[in-house]
């Protein structure tokens, strides 16, 4: 048991030692996993899950001060994280811009995860409002993480506009449906040279690994960890999946073939009989 634990610690150490640096807006990060902070059964579990995920960036929402709530949410999560505030729940450019400005004032960051949804049922992003909001917020010196649909042209346009990170979904927020249109994701990765994180819809660690194998720069997730039976363990699984997928991508995946390609030579086998 002790040997096993030691081996595990060594593997962990090895994983952490070999991680490449990710640069976002001039800041260095080791983790390519951004974690949401919503839906956890309690704050202790949230903190343990964030720790276990290895994430360095966490997302936050901006909401009215609740006078019935005794404590401030931010005081209850560890201070080591870089905050990425979002505009969750915004339907219009006007709402999103004000929320971004309030976030900047509150958290003293010009980072904003720009979310503009089209309706309350499917929560799919509104590309028109998003694009117009991006234009305005870039003028106001925000660094935008643009949450968008998996439309390659839109992703490219957002990148060209100057978004810091473009964040296409793989399926609707919280659905856990995983990758629905891998072909679009392939095109997005081919068309966009900048940072692309996949956001929303991830259900299981293999989804995260697959996304990373495709060469995306990172993954943002929340529900798949927070709503799992054991969030702390799932957070770790997601961390390992992201690392594994990234390492696989960097190692150069083999091309797919419709026919078998033998790995063991037939030469020297004992004869056909």
């Amino acid at each position: 048991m002790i040997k096993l634990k030691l081996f595990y610690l060594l593997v962990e150490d090895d994983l952490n030692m070999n991680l490449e640096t990710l640069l976002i807006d001039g800041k260095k990060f080791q983790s390519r996993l951004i974690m949401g902070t919503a839906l956890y059964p309690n704050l202790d579990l949230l903190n343990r899950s964030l720790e276990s995920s290895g994430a360095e960036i966490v997302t936050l929402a901006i909401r009215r001060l609740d006078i019935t709530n005794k404590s401030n949410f931010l005081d209850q999560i560890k201070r080591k994280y870089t905050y990425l505030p979002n505009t969750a729940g915004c339907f219009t450019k006007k709402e999103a811009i004000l929320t971004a400005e309030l976030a900047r004032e509150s958290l003293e960051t010009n980072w904003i995860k720009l979310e503009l949804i089209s309706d309350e049922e499917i929560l799919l992003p509104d590309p028109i409002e998003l694009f117009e909001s991006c234009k305005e917020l870039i003028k106001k010196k925000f660094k935008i993480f643009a949450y968008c649909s998996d439309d390659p042209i839109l992703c490219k346009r957002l990148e060209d506009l100057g978004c810091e990170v473009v964040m296409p979904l793989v399926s609707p927020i919280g659905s856990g449906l995983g990758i629905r249109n891998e072909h679009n994701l392939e095109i997005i990765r081919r068309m966009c040279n900048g940072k692309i994180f996949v956001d929303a819809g991830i259900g299981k660690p293999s989804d995260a690994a697959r996304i990373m194998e495709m060469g995306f720069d990172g993954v943002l997730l929340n529900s798949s960890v927070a709503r799992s039976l054991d969030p702390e363990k799932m957070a770790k699984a997601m961390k390992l999946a992201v690392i594994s997928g990234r390492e696989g991508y960097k190692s150069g995946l083999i091309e797919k073939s419709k026919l078998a390609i033998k790995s063991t030579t037939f030469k020297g086998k004992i004869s056909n009989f």
Partner: protein
Amino acid sequence: MSETKKIFLINGSSFVCKLKNPNLNDLIEIFLTENKKLSTKIAVAVNNILVERSKWKKKKISFHDKIEIVLPFSGG
């Protein structure tokens, strides 16, 4: 300062303030004190326009103004 009570709209609810012509800073201070809250990390908008903390004292508030006080919260 006059002691006539006045009603303001803060975060969608009525808030009664004793000051007759408060500036934003006074109003926020009274609101937070009455609700035993600290001003750390709060941001404020008046009539859907951000008012930076450095400008609270200069910002006059009138009866019909809509005040929003926000904080970071859990989010995905």
